[in-house]
């Protein structure tokens, strides 16, 4: 069968063609919204029109079977209109109130997990991991699955003091928003890479390999027409591996994950914040990484127990102080927690104020 005529540089279709009529009509003219349940909210337009959004969790990695099922449901209750959220959840866009109940019934019956709206844990932003990326020091989808299983009730029913945004990245390239998440897991290495010198000469640009190293650990090895790594300076970030494949950084025995906490992106109350290191290392323990889930649980429980309403994780920690964070979570404070990278000095405690 002949292929259809390809077209180039046409860009995506116009968004208008994908908006439900009620949205087209009230575009930019919404008045307020109400959260009706953890999985349902309604937006009310100045015209009085309403649109209901019913949100269900998604593992992000979807088979065509599942997508077809989602499309079928959307056809049945939403005139075929459906959207995904910026955190990979699915939203059924209901224009007709009477479809709301039946839609939810069908979702329940098909075991779709409704929730994620309001002050709770939503889906985890994540990356490829062992599923598709060469760079992964851990698997992302697996970590997301075990974490979301652990905290499922915070998606479907229970509340947290404010939204808790989690992320998982399978290497320090951090293709998710790990660096600004309430709680995030990022996979890390702990061994100096090894170099296949014969291949370096053909496959790598020496200057860009050197430039890739954040600590200046790499220098030319002219004899071998390759590069060498100063083991004392290397902190196993893996960026040399990214630009030069013959540099091998993976080490199943020593790879694992770090947990960072306290970041956020919104401007509400406090400015956007970076996540900071909470736990420098937990060994990869697939398939269910029990040490990761229990550690995240510790952090989350402490936050839920102690934070004020509307306080994000980072705001809570800043209020109580990092020393207290380590105390209430029982996490050990190690040399790894003390910054020694480019802005290290800005993180040193230049004050005599702290808690015991």
């Amino acid at each position, binding site marked *: 069968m002949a292929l*259809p005529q*390809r077209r180039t*540089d*046409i*860009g*995506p279709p116009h968004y208008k*063609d*994908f908006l439900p009529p009620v949205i087209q009509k009230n575009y*930019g003219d*919404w*008045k307020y*919204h109400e959260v009706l349940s953890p999985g349902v909210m309604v937006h009310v337009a100045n015209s009085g029109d309403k*649109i209901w959004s019913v949100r269900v969790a*998604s*593992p992000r*990695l979807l*088979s*065509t*079977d599942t*997508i*077809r099922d989602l*499309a079928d449901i*959307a056809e049945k209750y939403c005139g*075929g209109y459906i*959207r*995904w*959220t910026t955190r*990979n959840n699915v939203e059924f866009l209901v224009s007709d109130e009477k479809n709301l109940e039946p839609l939810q019934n069908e979702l329940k019956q098909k075991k779709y997990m409704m929730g994620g709206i309001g002050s709770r844990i939503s889906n985890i932003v994540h990356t490829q991991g*062992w599923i*598709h*990326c*060469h760079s*992964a020091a851990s*698997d992302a*989808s697996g970590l*997301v699955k*075990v974490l979301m*299983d652990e905290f*499922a009730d915070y*998606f479907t029913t229970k509340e947290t003091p404010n939204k808790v945004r989690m992320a998982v990245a399978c290497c320090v390239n*951090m*293709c998710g928003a790990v*660096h*600004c998440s309430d709680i995030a897991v990022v996979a890390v290495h702990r061994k100096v890479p090894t170099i296949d010198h014969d291949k370096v000469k053909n496959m790598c640009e020496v200057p*860009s390999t050197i430039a890739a190293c954040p600590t200046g650990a790499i220098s030319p090895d002219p004899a071998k027409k390759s590069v060498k790594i100063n083991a004392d300076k290397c902190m196993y*970030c893996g960026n040399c591996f990214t*630009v030069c494949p013959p540099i091998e950084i993976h080490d*199943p*025995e020593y790879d694992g994950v770090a947990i960072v906490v306290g970041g956020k*992106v919104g*401007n*509400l*109350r*406090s400015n*956007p914040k*970076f996540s900071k290191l909470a736990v420098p290392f937990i060994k990869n323990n*697939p*398939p269910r990484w029990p040490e990761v889930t229990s550690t995240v649980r510790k952090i989350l429980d402490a936050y839920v127990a102690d934070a*004020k309403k509307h306080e994000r994780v980072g705001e809570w920690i800043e209020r109580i102080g990092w020393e207290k964070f380590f105390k209430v979570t029982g996490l050990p404070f190690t040399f790894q927690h003390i910054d020694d990278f*480019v802005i290290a000095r800005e993180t040193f405690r230049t004050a005599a104020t702290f808690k015991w």
Partner: protein
Amino acid sequence: MPKKYETPLLDELEKGPFPSFVTEIKKAAAKNDMAADELGQLEKSYRDKRGYWKHGGIVGVRGYGSGVIGRYSSLPEEFPNVANFHTVRINSIAGFFYTSKFLKEACDIWDKYGSGLTNFHGSTGDLVLLGTNTENLEPVFAEFSSRGWDLGGSGSALRTPSCCVGPARCEWSNIDTLDITYSITQEWQDEMHRPAFPYKFKFKTAGCAVDCIASIARADCSIIGTWKGNIAIDQSEVANYAKKGMNIQEEIVNMCPSKCMSYDGKELKINDADCVRCMHCIAKMTKALKPTGEKGATILIGSKAPFVIGATLSWVIVPFMKMEPPYDEFKDLIRKMWEFWDEHGKNRERIGELIIRKGMREFLEYIGVEPQPQQVKEPRRDPFFFWTEADLQK
């Protein structure tokens, strides 16, 4: 019939309440050879605690330098159907809206030419078709493009711009996030499809400072809607919130970062001149508070992941810009920025890193933006600074 692998480890991940990606892969694997081998290789990764993918090579569709991520298995004998297994990035719809019609068509194409696996969506915002063999790339592209869809970005190119749902379904949007996203995507198709930048460049557009698209953390250019004007207060709705149990003093007034609110148990007051438009009060009392006045956006530059100098958040370049179609002022500004980057950027140097290396002055002068206190949290502390000859003559 695709090969059936034993997956005792992955099977563990079908347990539990959250929908399982393993189940998804198995669904596809039941009828698709590539998905089957993906599953098999993944089980092995779980056993050995390591990935089995190699660096991607240069692979793509004719005439494009981007849109496809090349990927090769390091165990091609064991898993021949993913020996090469590239992802295709389809430029998603602004706001991530879809119709069932399109979804079904997409599934048909992908079942035919690909693994039957997808990501809705990749972190940048593409509709990711997760894995197919080299020979299927052209067919996939022909099928999609003939239906009006195109590839997104990859490599040292403009990446697929994305945005929050904005005016489509949110009462707080100060700008048309979808239209901005659509417009810049269309404007710069060449920049997206033929990598010619020093490194990647990402746009993310949020309708307000709530930033539901994480623009400030994940975009070289973050466009964040804002306003110049007062917050209109509906005191009867304030009373309603109080009645329903909101502790307005604690939850709103005390949490206002600029301490510009007061509440005497009856009336809520805002000293608008001191408001920094953080959105907290508005978000928590949406029925009572509404921004008024001129709408526009703050343009911030520079956020990215940690390499090489540590993660950055975007910072303010233009405190306020009107955002009206065809967005010429904005686009001209971006072109200037790209020129600067093109001229001075090193290979694999993001624009933010370049500005940090060169200093704000050189950048601002180049793009023709005045220095303004809104660009900094605080002025410099050490009294070392440059003077141009022109400065000295002032």
